[in-house]
């Protein structure tokens, strides 16, 4: 399938990139345009979330007023970033990394605890979250290290350093009880994939993550079906043989349905379809293994192991989790970085879904949201800011915001791809990954797709540190891309 894509679409993208590169180019104005659009929408949306008709129409002391000042400051920083020569980002990568790490460490001693995470440094009137800037520092450091001479991802020595660069701040975050922010560091896997990290790591972790989330989302029966289809598809890919697995799947389905209905109507026993399917599929795997042995098909054991280990993983995690008391379950989710919920488990997400769902196609209109007022939705100006988008601007508005983020990430990937220097490319991919994970987790949690992890939606959530950090991340990427253009023109 990858071959297929390279033939058709991808080469087109790459070729387009090459063409531009030859002609030389200036600043990527598309990205700046998208950024401006997000900033404006984000602020207007924040205003709506904070707005309270019992207060004045505009008060600088409220969250939206403070955010406006941060936006102004961020624009200045963006301008400075564009004026600074790009070689300084190479030079300053390690000092910035060290500085941010030191700032994070100092929060453990000097920091102020807000919402259970001791992650804030208070400097006079400013509260700064060094965690937000750490993402920028790690991106620079990774780019610096991995663009070094003789670095290859295949060697353990190089990988070990990459692990340390990412692992150090993550360890500090665990010490700060800020596990939510640590999840974001998984985003560097995107860049590592581009740089050629072994694909099996992704396949295995993809399966594990899929099963883990799957066990939260879908029924046991659905999950079992997914495992069966996955194994059959695996066989298809490995052996380039699609008929045998299809026949096998169809017979499993047929036999299980016949047994289930037969038991129900002929024997009048109400067996659960899940157990029927489980028994039939175990039998079918055994039959397939014997058949494969007879047909001298090699490496079939891989699929058998995959099937049974998936089953074991799902049932083990499910059984262990369900056997715990409710408060223990909550504690586990707390340590996993899933937010603790004072008013009851699931209440936040349920309220958030009601707010977004009530928006309909076109939303209720600016300042007309009812659910996001009245504190129905918690943290409505920070983590759950997307609820206001969904409620007041509806499906159309939500899709517009998502589309802007999608374009932004695509542009970042494209910028990375058209830079010849590995430093700029690696950096751009890091930034793309960070944005992707933030958008995915933040919007995903408001609609119940992923567990509740308290991380901000870039440019939308209230918070000066995160706004400034995202601006910095983005504009350094723009600067590096611009720099690469300059090189060619010279």
């Amino acid at each position, binding site marked *: 399938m990858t071959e297929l894509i390279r033939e058709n679409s991808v080469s087109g993208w790459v070729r387009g990139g090459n063409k531009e590169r030859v002609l030389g180019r200036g600043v990527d104005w598309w990205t700046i345009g998208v950024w401006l659009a997000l900033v404006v929408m984000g602020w207007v949306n924040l205003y709506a979330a904070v707005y309270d008709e019992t207060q004045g129409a505009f008060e600088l002391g409220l969250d939206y007023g403070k955010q406006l000042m941060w936006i102004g400051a961020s624009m200045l920083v963006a301008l400075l970033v564009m004026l600074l020569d790009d070689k300084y980002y190479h030079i300053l990568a390690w000092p910035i990394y060290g500085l941010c790490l030191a700032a994070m460490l100092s929060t453990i001693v000097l920091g102020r605890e807000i919402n259970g995470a001791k992650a804030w440094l208070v400097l006079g009137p400013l509260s700064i979250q060094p965690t937000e800037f750490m993402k920028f520092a790690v991106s620079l450091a990774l780019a610096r290290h991995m663009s070094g001479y003789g670095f290859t991802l295949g060697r353990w020595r190089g990988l070990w350093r990459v692990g340390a660069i990412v692992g150090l701040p993550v360890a500090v975050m665990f010490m700060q009880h800020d596990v939510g922010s640590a999840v974001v560091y998984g985003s560097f896997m995107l860049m590592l994939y581009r740089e050629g990290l072994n694909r099996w790591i992704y396949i295995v972790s993809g399966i594990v993550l899929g099963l883990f989330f799957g066990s939260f989302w879908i029924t046991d029966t659905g999950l079992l079906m997914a495992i069966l289809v996955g194994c059959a598809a695996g066989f298809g890919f490995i052996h380039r043989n699609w008929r045998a697995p299809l026949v096998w799947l169809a017979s499993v389905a047929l036999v299980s349905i016949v047994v289930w209905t037969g038991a129900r109507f002929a024997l009048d026993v109400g067996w659960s379809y899940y157990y029927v399917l489980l028994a039939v599929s175990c039998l079918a795997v055994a039959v397939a293994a014997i058949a494969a042995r007879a047909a001298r098909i090699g490496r079939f054991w891989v699929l058998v192991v995959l099937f049974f280990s998936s089953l074991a993983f799902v049932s083990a995690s499910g059984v262990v989790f369900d056997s715990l008391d409710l408060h223990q379950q909550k504690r586990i989710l707390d340590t996993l970085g899933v937010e603790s919920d004072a008013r009851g488990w699931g209440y936040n997400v349920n309220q958030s879904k009601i707010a977004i769902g009530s928006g309909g196609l076109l939303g209720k209109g600016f300042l007309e949201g009812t659910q996001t007022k*009245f504190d129905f939705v918690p943290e409505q100006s920070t983590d759950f800011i997307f609820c206001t988008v969904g409620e007041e601007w509806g499906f159309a508005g939500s899709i517009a915001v*998502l589309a802007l983020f999608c374009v932004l990430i695509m542009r970042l*990937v494209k910028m990375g791809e058209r830079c010849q220097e590995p430093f700029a490319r690696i950096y751009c991919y890091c930034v793309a990954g960070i944005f992707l994970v933030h958008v995915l987790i933040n919007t995903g949690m408001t609609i119940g797709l992923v567990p509740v992890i308290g991380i901000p939606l870039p440019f939308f959530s209230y918070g000066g540190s995160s706004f400034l950090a995202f601006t910095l991340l983005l504009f350094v990427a723009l600067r590096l891309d611009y720099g690469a253009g300059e090189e060619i023109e010279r």
Partner: protein
Amino acid sequence: MERNSARYGTLLIFVVVVFAIIAARLFHIQIIDTSYKEASSNNALRHEVLYPPRGEVVDRNGEYIIRSRESYDLIITPLDAVPFDTLLLCRIVDVPLPRMRSQLEKAVRYSRRRPSVVVAGLSKETKLMLDELRIAGFNTVYRTVRSYPRKMAGNLLGYVNEVNAGDLARDGYYRSGDYIGRSGIEAAYEKYLRGEKGVKINLVDVHGIVQGSYQDGMYDTLPVAGKTLTASLDAELQAFAEELMRGKVGSVVAIEPSTGEILVMANGPTYDPDELIGRERNENYARMSSDRRRPLFNRAVMAQYPPGSTFKMVNGLIGLQEGVLRPENRYVCNHGYSAGGLTVGCHAHSSPLDLRHAIMTSCNAYFCYVLRNVMDEQEHGGAASRGGYAKWAEYVRSFGFGRKLESDFTAELNGNVPLPEYYEKVYRGRWNSLTVISLSIGQGELGTSPLQMANLAATIANRGHYYIPHVIKEIDGQPLESKFYEPHHTAVDPEHFEPIVEGMYMAAHEDGGTVKAMGMVPGLEICGKTGTSQNAHRDHSVFIGFAPKDDPKIAICVYVENAGFGSTAAVPVGSLLMEQYLTDTITRPALAEYVKSMQIQYPHYDGAN
């Protein structure tokens, strides 16, 4: 490198797939699944606040002095309201139409979405009638309304009223329309009395009719009732004190010396706290705040009177502790004290006197000698006085003067004991013990509240220590914070108190004693001291005392403004109250009637006419 750039395409597809999943989910929630819209439309979830009953207060004998009674508020959520029969509503709740109109407008101005109180304090019958009518946008909520069965001690019990913007900003617990304690016990124990609000989340349909509780009440919380407080107050005695203070301006504070519990805190004039409840509240409040005798001013803890002669004991004690005075020391009094061209006058009594007799007869000259000896003592820097005065002021503060006692009254004021710097500034460095000689007889710059003076009486009764005075003794049967149970020792050792106590005993029992004529009750062993405190108008009549002499049960301070000598008004009031408390009888009914009917003229309060 080539192989890796191939991964670029896979990544792009991954990104697109991620966004597609989110978009699909949004499509499902926002477009396909209509249950969310139903759940949200027209405020599907109505958060109904369940108000807890406010805590009640009983006196030390278990008699209710603050009660809570059931009441209902009519609430409007303007957004949900439809045109309705305003006249009918006015008739049911008994509110004139213009007032109703203005209330409704006010509610709309506050918020279209948030509920506001339209009419407060409705009876259960009215609430049931309103429930039957079921006017869209209106509903009733349960509240408690205060009542004060004994109709007394307004300043002590305090009152409640609606929260203002400042309260809302200060404490996130309150919502517009909530009530908060404003003074006295109601304010000081607000946190215990208010309880905790509960919330009931109801599913409501488009017509505003409750369909049931949300998720079987999983997120509901029950209100927690406010705590019952036990006051140390003796309601009988308080009522008697208020009767005695009728027609007079002043204050009475009585304390149980062994615990610091306040038995009586009566002000004249007082008010009935029931007057600050319900619909007449605003009129009554306006009337009281414009009354020039200031019934809303809690004189017991806020007034700053000169203590007058009742302060002589403090000076005697300081002299004894400093070693410049011994009880046997006699000083001559020739109708006063003269030094350096300055004279402090005194009344006629035998001379010379020792300490006990000086207290008994309230000799001014004696304490002028004592104060000068304390201040001019060589080791404090001699006649330059600054050091001597500082030492003296430090002693005085250890008795609880010039600072708050930290009692459970939020309105308590410091009183005044000047710092040495004050005199340095006023007299530009040229001052000595003679300059401030009036301090010896409790005049000059000194300012003390009746609570501080009652505390002095309790301190002398305890021979050297006091417990912080407090009016609440138990919260739901539990003891208070520990500071109320710790003895506070003065800087004077206990053995020096005995001659002072004897002097106070003699004042009430021997001929020539200032208290005896109006204050002695056979068998009660009263110890007391009069004061005649000079001020801009006629002298205040002051008395502090305690009884019995050994193992005292009650210490008291009485101020009657502008009533003249201590023995004319303050002594009988104090003596009658101690008798009532200790023996539960009044052996001098004629005196009681006389005091009750005594009317003092207050031209400076009431104006020239």
